[in-house]
């Protein structure tokens, strides 16, 4: 029993950590630069598919897989998302916030459309499976029979070793990896925020005409923020693919469960505050998955009481009820606590510069 709780907490940390990375990426775009991106799911999909195609074993269903090392796949996932964001940024960044929102939501849909239709490359709606997950992948033959593991032992020995482990052995390692990546990104963003770059972003967001008048290249800074945020989202997408191990264009990349949840997380935690972004992510994810348990429990209870009544459809609908409540939560936060749990803290200006 206790052990089950441990695993549950590990999975909360893993998925919460992935969402926290998404929220950190969004914080660069929205919290730092005031860019209203509602196409998070598009960058997540780009990152996830890039990673999946590069790292899966060769397959007849989709392009590749190329079986590249996992870190390489994650790096390229970031770069691809950044390039896509750069192209979008060049076109859309000058748009007023509403238009940027329309454009980004559209781009996300187009990206999904491409993944759905280019079946030669992506296997279309059937998706890509057996995506290697960090640490766990070592127990696959193609990894333990090659370098570096082959250096330490024969495939037979490794096979025996992994068989002797409990089937959840990789979970703590994977969770730690996610949290480590999150922490590194957090530290880097904190540095950027306090650096002149971050202060410039604040200045642009607060008073764009004044920033322009003082000779700042507002457009370039905005594109930078958009690209950096998207790269982080691409990385989170790659982790998301590892967590799921099977991705397909429609249900995996449901705007409600990616874009929308990430927005609620950032706003609840506090836009502009990196710690707030992470706190919001863990909080909302915990609420989200705990409410699943509670609602499922409640329904099971109902089924017990009203024996014979068809409660199957109730169960699927309960998920939507949850989404509705999260939506209402967003409205309450927007109206009552617009600054979030951890409000933005302005970096202190160095002496002499206003």
């Amino acid at each position, binding site marked *: 029993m206790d052990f089950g709780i441990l695993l549950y907490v590990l999975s909360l940390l893993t998925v919460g950590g992935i969402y926290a990375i998404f929220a950190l990426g969004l914080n660069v775009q929205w919290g730092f630069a005031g860019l209203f991106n509602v196409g998070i799911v598009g960058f997540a999909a780009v990152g996830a598919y890039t990673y999946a195609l590069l790292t899966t074993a060769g397959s007849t269903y989709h392009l590749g897989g190329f079986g590249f090392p996992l870190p390489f796949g994650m790096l390229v996932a970031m770069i691809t998302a950044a390039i896509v964001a750069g192209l979008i940024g060049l076109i859309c960044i000058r*748009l007023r916030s*509403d238009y940027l*929102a329309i454009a980004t939501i559209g781009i996300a*849909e187009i990206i999904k459309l491409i993944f759905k239709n280019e079946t030669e490359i992506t296997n279309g709606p059937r998706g890509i499976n057996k995506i290697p997950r960090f640490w766990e992948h070592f127990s696959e033959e193609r990894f333990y029979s090659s370098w570096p593991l082959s250096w330490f032992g024969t495939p037979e020995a490794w096979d025996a070793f992994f068989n002797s482990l409990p089937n959840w052995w990789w979970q703590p390692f994977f969770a730690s990896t996610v949290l480590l990546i999150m922490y590194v990104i957090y530290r880097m963003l904190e540095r950027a925020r306090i650096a002149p770059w971050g202060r410039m972003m604040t200045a642009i967001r607060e008073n764009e005409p004044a920033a322009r008048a003082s000779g700042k290249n507002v457009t370039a800074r905005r594109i930078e923020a958009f690209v950096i945020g998207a790269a982080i989202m691409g990385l989170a997408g790659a982790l998301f693919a590892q967590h799921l191990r099977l991705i397909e264009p429609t249900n995996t990349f449901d705007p409600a469960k990616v874009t*929308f949840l990430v927005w609620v997380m950032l706003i609840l935690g506090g836009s502009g505050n990196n710690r707030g972004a992470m706190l919001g992510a863990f909080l909302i994810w915990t609420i989200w998955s705990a409410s699943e348990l509670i609602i499922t429990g409640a329904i099971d209870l109902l089924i017990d009481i009203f024996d014979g009544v068809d409660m199957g459809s109730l169960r*699927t609908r309960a998920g*939507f009820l949850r989404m509705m409540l999260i939506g*209402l939560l967003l409205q309450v936060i*927007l109206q009552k606590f617009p600054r979030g749990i951890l409000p933005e803290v302005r970096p202190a200006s160095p002496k002499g510069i206003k």
Partner: protein
Amino acid sequence: MWNSFGFEFINFYFIPGLVLGCIYALGAIGITLTFSILRFANFAHGETMMTGAYLTWTVMAICSGVLGFAVHPLVAAVPATLLVVLLFLVTDRYFYKPFRQADTIKVVMASFGMMLIIRSAVQVIWGPNQLTFVPGIAKPNAYLKDWSGSIDFLLLIPNKHLFIFVGTIAFMMALSYLLNKTRIGKAMRAVSDSPDLAHVTGINVDQVIRATWIVGGACAMAAGVFLAMDIQMLETTMGFRMLLPMFAAAILGGIGKPYGAVLGGLVIGLAEELSAYPWIGDGPLLSPGYKTGVAFAIMVVMLIVRPQGLFKGRSF
């Protein structure tokens, strides 16, 4: 000529394009009015359309199931419209009005949240699965078929499409009358022109905003029901699917220009259908899977080349 080329083009590409265009046009009217009078992009508009269609279905189901007689969707749509308008007004009062004086982006965010709240609510109430709106295969209107066949210009248009055409024209005429001949309609144009001036002129802006939701809600309702009549079924994603083409239509026509939105809707609808026509060679020009991308491509080109739209609307 007609038989080899024209027949297929008109009946299988042009007319469906026009039908889709009418649906987009009606939806885009609400978007453009909200955008110009309340000054924000309403992301929940598509969901309201979808809700309207579900409510209409429910009214039809109650009539045939409980009262024992079948009603046409357009009749069932009337009581449903009242509910949809109510939904719009309640949403505005509790979720958009608190942000009236604040940054626009807050209210855009609120509407983004509403999009999910409304959709989830529909999924909870009616379930996530498709529902049949009108069963059976729609046969072409026999009279039109005979008559057009006799002059060698065979047209195969089912009644549902004729309803959609006539309904859209009727809505356009009513809207035109409202905006140009009634006091509240003129005030809507005035607020769209300059809300600050409207305010100091003494115009009751709250009343104008309510009128905007009512007009936009009625048009959204019509668009939702027409869409359901066309595809003959209901899906909870149908509103979201419409959202982007409707935004594209509103932007194409120029924000704040209802006639522009209609033209934009027709252009987008036709472009989507005609993109699948075998213009070059035998295969469709664009794989039908990418149909929904057409609206988006047009919108992006428009935003770059002429952000004020064809009709010189407001550009932000």
